[in-house]
């Protein structure tokens, strides 16, 4: 046996090191950010109001519902399934929230809790059917899509229920005080520095190669600037909108779940190869059901935000949202075959979709154009992704 064990350290010659590290960073995520900026610049040139603080604040608020749904959808798609019911589930749980708040006069905290429970249970029911009864998720959630919409009409008697409780309305409409925004930014940056530092120390402890200091600093500066600019722009209007904070918190939580916990790892393994996952001792059914539970839960969170923002629940609320969420995931690089995809990608995907919506509405484009443009961009984004991957593999 040729005693040539090519280990991590010694195969990577110095010249390669930078390339290697750059490759390790999520190149995709950066190109996506670039795409968003490009879209913004385009709309900014075509329309004066697009890049104002007020509109951007609006845009982020608009994005929040799709983004929250997309977070759950990433997990579902990664595990190799699909959830077509989230749009209707948003409608239904929104209706439930409105009924509890308005007809039953329950306090906001109880409304929130009740809504989340309903979302969780309906997610669990669908998950159980998919995981334990082996009905394809496409069918189960297609059924859910119709049934939940019907249930919504039934319980609301097909009326629009408006929200009168002012504290409930805060959820989707309030802004964080400006000082608070700055404090949050400071905390976030401090956390970035801390995590970079501990990461370097820990790699050092294990004797692994450490990314070059300047590269790390560069990344740090880039992200810090992003945070600061974001907070300043938001503050120059009314402060950071409440819903955005939900999105950010959920994104952090679910990225952690996906990347750093056994549950997340197992979900990726199941989507990558179910049989191998089963033979590695992973409890496929339970994990699959949990994915749908999370998707249902996130749908009910999205419903709370939406209902509160619109101050009412209507029978058409959330219609087609499942498709927006799926599109956001796919634009963000989630593979429909399962096994790969990131939360951050999906959120940027949601931002792309919402920016298009917002920009085209501002320009007063007729809605048929908006649909055509969105559809085209979806296909285009995936095509771009596939060709670039093929190039990389073929080299």
């Amino acid at each position: 046996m040729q005693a040539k064990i090519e280990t991590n350290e010694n195969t990577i010659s110095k010249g390669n090191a930078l390339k290697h590290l750059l490759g390790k960073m999520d190149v995709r995520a950066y190109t996506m950010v670039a795409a968003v900026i490009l879209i913004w610049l385009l709309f900014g040139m075509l329309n004066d109001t697009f890049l104002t603080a007020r509109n951007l604040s609006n845009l982020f608020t608009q994005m929040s519902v799709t983004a929250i749904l997309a977070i759950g959808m990433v997990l579902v798609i990664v595990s190799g399934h699909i959830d077509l019911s989230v749009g209707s589930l948003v409608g239904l749980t929104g209706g439930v929230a409105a009924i509890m708040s308005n007809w039953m006069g329950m306090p906001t905290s109880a409304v929130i809790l009740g809504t989340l429970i309903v979302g969780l249970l309906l997610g669990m029911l669908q998950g159980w059917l998919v995981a334990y009864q082996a009905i394809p998720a496409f069918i189960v959630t297609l059924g859910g899509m119709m049934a939940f919409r019907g249930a919504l009409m039934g319980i609301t008697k097909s009326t629009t229920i408006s929200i009168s409780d002012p504290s409930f309305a805060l959820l989707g409409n309030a802004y964080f005080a400006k000082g608070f925004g700055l404090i949050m930014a400071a905390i976030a940056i401090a956390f970035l520095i801390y995590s970079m530092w501990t990461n370097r120390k820990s790699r050092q402890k294990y004797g692994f190669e450490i990314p070059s200091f300047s590269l790390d600093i560069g990344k740090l500066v880039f992200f810090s600037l992003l945070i600061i600019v974001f907070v300043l722009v938001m503050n120059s209007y009314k402060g950071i909108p409440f819903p955005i904070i939900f999105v950010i918190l959920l994104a952090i939580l679910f990225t952690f779940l996906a990347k750093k916990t056994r549950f997340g790892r197992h979900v990726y393994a199941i989507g990558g190869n179910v049989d191998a996952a089963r033979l590695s001792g992973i409890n496929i059914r339970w994990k699959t059901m949990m994915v749908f539970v999370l998707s249902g839960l996130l749908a009910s969170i999205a419903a709370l935000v939406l209902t509160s923002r619109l101050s009412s629940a209507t029978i058409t609320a959330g219609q087609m949202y499942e498709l927006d969420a799926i599109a956001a995931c796919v634009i963000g690089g989630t593979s429909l075959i399962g096994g790969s995809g990131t939360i951050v990608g999906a959120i940027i995907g949601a931002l792309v979709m919402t920016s298009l919506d917002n920009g085209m509405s501002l320009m007063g484009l007729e809605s048929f154009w908006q649909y055509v443009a969105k559809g085209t961009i979806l296909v285009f984004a995936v095509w771009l992704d596939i060709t670039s991957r093929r190039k990389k593999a073929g080299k």
Partner: protein
Amino acid sequence: MYALEMIEITKEFPGVKALDRVSFKVKKGEIHALCGENGAGKSTLMKVLSGLYPAGTYQGEIQIDGEKKEFHQIMDAEKAGIAIIHQELALVKEMTVGENIFLGAEPIKRGVIQWDELYHQAAGWLKKVGLKVSPETKIGTLGIGQQQLVEIAKALSKNTKILILDEPTAALTESEVEILMGLLHQLRNNGVSCIYISHKMPEVFRLADSITILRDGRTIATLDSKEADDDKVVSLMVGRELTERYPRVKHTPLETVLEVRNYSVSHKDIPGKRVIKDINLTLRKGEILGIAGLMGAGRTELAMSLFGAYEGKAEGEVLIDGKPVQIRSVQEAIQAGLALVTEDRKRLGLVLGMDIKTNTTMAALEKVTKWGTIHTNEEIKWGQKYVDDLRTKTPSLETTVGTLSGGNQQKVVLGKWLMADPKILILDEPTRGIDVGAKYEIYHLMNKLVERGVAIIMISSELPEVLGMSDRILVMRDGTFVKEIEWREATQENIMLAATGGI
């Protein structure tokens, strides 16, 4: 005059130079063996030849009958008379034998498939390869050996002048290998050139006229098989002398760790049929128990069932450390201290899209988890440990396992189960597709595990391996154990006799 000349072929992947100015020449009507360690570049060279890697993605030149060719897609290579049978079978399970043979080349008349014609021709090709099944059988119902023959029939139907077989016998039984060898000799006499990749030296010498040896992506030598011998080829492959193939050390078996009593397993699809019939088995700490038998004897089913992974119902008693256990799922099996290295690594062993370290930690993620959080550096540490221990050849730990060579993938599967630290390790064809040097290392590792008190069950179709490594050998036929032999008394003959029912 060469039927095929590959000149100065260089092929790079990110981080690896898989082929480095390789030259390879095959005469008309010869069987040419291509040998080399895992990851030497054999499959890559053949993928270049068959157009899977199109012209332009590599450097160098390909000549067929002295004429320069450029293959931009697989079709181009097929037109030039080149057909490849890949290391992993590529048939559509849901389709019939006939449909598979003519996939992409269906006989049509005015756009309509001529089914009768298709099945008629398919039957003819099946006869040529000596496979006695109806062309209308579904592929999924055939054994691996039969599927292999279907692949060959498919290749021949394309008017092939150069037939490439990438480890065709890795999954075949002895008798199937015989059929295949006869077939290849016949093809040679008809003027077809065959390129034959195998890690099994005896076969190489029985079959091949010439042998080309690759090492680390370079051509080391081309030999006439009459002038070469086993040891010479192996030492050229691995770059040094390799004296013993099976490192037998004395094991001292201790107390019984696994006992299986009156164990039966029903077939997963056919109710009433039993794949395992009333067997008894004891396994002691610190021993290697070999299980021999023909393909389809029920060995894999037994392993899967003990591991809680077979869908058919099991009856009987299983005792671990003297205590009765109920294993209904893989989780329970792992908890009870079992590990199973499955025979089909791509389908059952690995998540091909994930990287080496993630696959390694898959079955023992709790070892790298602290406070519910996966510790990436710990993960790298473990991944690196098994890459080093098993000498897996890879550019980095973050390489997706799908891009590794077959043998190196097998090592990743082994690493995964070693990390789970089992009491009882079941190995189903552990060295399939693994080169001689790496085999030796795996045997060595088995010895080390046994020394630490692990009990090993080794299922293998390679008799020399069973003979060389086991302390005891059980022979299985039709779902029962027909014979138990101490290693000292075991010979190829008495095992084969028991396995085929001669007793």
